[in-house]
């Protein structure tokens, strides 16, 4: 039972890192990227490669993953962010599909469809993380650090610039904001931090393959952010917990055939999204834009 709970907690922490970093661009900057799983994958494959090839420890492997994710996101963001919203969605979709092909076909690095097995345990200042509990602590520390960085950024001048661009790009330009540079920086920061989740994931499972980094993952991350509440720090955490606990909760329901849980889960997501967008468009934790609050300021 404990093993099950710890496993779930580690996976929730890792996904929470992804959701929080996605929210940084989606919620605060209004950049709808469906390529977030790609940077999760880049982090995982790079960390694995560096660890298996050079025996690197957790910090070095993670740093390598972050650096490569940052570079790739820069290559995506520079051309794609010159155009407006919906084009970025299309560009990021294209990149996500491209990445899946590379993850599948570049067999010497990614192991192809079969993936990479026997990834060595993470080393941390000479200490080898061999127990699931170790990984839970490490994941929680990483999540905590990511949250602190996000909190500092969204409360800073940079966070205000992001929100200004999200609310009105034309006005942001007119007030001297270099929108393209600010958006690109946000995407690079978000992608580099998403790679941390990839590194944790690879070391924890000691096995990775392309299935963890596909389009469905990107969309599920988006669902976590939107259901939890965009542009809040707590919202994506709530969304992550809900979405990852839902299958677990469903499996405890009596009379449900185990084979049907997957499709019931999909129906539940869909229903939850629709109801949420009707009744709480800001997400569970987000501010509620009720008619009352709209009238609140009237004389």
């Amino acid at each position, binding site marked *: 039972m404990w093993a099950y709970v710890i496993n779930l907690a580690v996976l929730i922490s890792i996904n929470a890192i992804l959701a929080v970093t996605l929210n940084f661009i989606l919620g605060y900057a209004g950049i709808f990227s469906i390529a977030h799983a790609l940077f999760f994958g880049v982090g995982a494959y790079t960390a694995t490669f560096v660890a298996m090839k050079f025996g690197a420890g957790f910090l070095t492997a993670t740093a390598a993953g972050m650096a490569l994710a940052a570079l790739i996101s820069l290559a995506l963001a520079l051309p794609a962010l010159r155009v407006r919203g919906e084009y970025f969605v299309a560009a990021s979709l294209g990149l996500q599909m491209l990445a899946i092909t590379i993850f599948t076909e570049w067999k010497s690095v990614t192991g192809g469809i079969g993936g990479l097995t026997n990834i060595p345990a993470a080393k941390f200042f000479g200490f080898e993380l061999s127990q699931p509990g170790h990984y839970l602590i490490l994941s929680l520390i990483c999540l905590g650090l990511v949250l602190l960085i996000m909190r500092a950024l969204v409360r800073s001048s940079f966070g205000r610039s992001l929100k200004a661009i999200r609310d009105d790009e034309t006005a942001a330009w*007119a007030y001297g904001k270099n929108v393209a540079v*600010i958006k690109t920086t946000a995407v690079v920061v978000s992608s580099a931090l998403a790679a941390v989740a990839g590194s944790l994931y690879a070391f924890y499972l000691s096995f990775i393959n392309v299935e963890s980094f596909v389009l469905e993952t990107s969309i599920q991350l988006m669902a976590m952010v939107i259901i939890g509440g965009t542009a809040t720090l707590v919202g994506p955490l709530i969304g992550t917990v809900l979405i990852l606990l839902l299958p677990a909760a469903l499996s405890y329901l009596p009379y449900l055939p185990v084979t049907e849980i997957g499709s019931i889960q999909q129906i539940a997501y869909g229903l939850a999204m629709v109801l949420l967008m009707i009744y709480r468009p800001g997400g569970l934790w987000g501010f509620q834009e009720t008619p009352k609050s709209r009238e*609140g300021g009237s004389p």
Partner: protein
Amino acid sequence: MSQGGEILLQATGVAKTFGGLKAVDDVTFTLRAGIITTLVGPNGAGKTTLFNLMTGHLVPDRGEVNWLGRSLLGLPHWQIARLGIGRTFQDLKLFNNMTVEENVTTVTERNSWLWQSGGAGAKGERRARAESALAATGLGGKRNARAIDLAYADRKFLSLARILASGARLWLLDEPASGLDRGSYERFLSLLRDQVRLGVTICIIEHNLDIVQGISDRIAFLDQGRLLAEGDPKTILSDPALAAIYFGERAS
């Protein structure tokens, strides 16, 4: 009425065509420091397009735009903004989901990188600028309200607070007084007069001729993309030919 000081902004022979429609047609136009110039003319005269050409939101097909003698052509509009040309929009374009204070603070923060340069001293200076903009527009008490939740007049004043905090030397205001009640209008007028006294130069697009008369040091009259006349308010407003155009009795 003052005729103004040095030439801040000079547009020479600018033209802009949208799919065959001449929105701005060979307009030569000067904004002098320290006065309020009003752009008047019927709807579709090209007033907002002229603003867009001056701020770099649009690039003229022909002609030249100079700021303090330096050409603005080819500069991205965020750089033009940093030179000291600020604007408001007809539809305000506030940062709706940000608080009043954030709206004003963010325009003082020009650095695109993850932090602002200049340390504590520069931060204090930005803070002081934001605070004085809030004080001048009477929005200090509503600093924590979201822009979208404000009443109409307060939204208008927030757009002014934003341009004030930005430190712009030239304010291009697109119909800033429309929809203001008498009291708010008086406050608006005295705010503008105060700022002009402090060295700000203002160019306003305005439809209401009473307001135009009350506010302008100079008037530029546009119709169908052309600058028909420019001069002091008395001359322009008493010209029967211009009045006929303005009120739709176009002379044939």
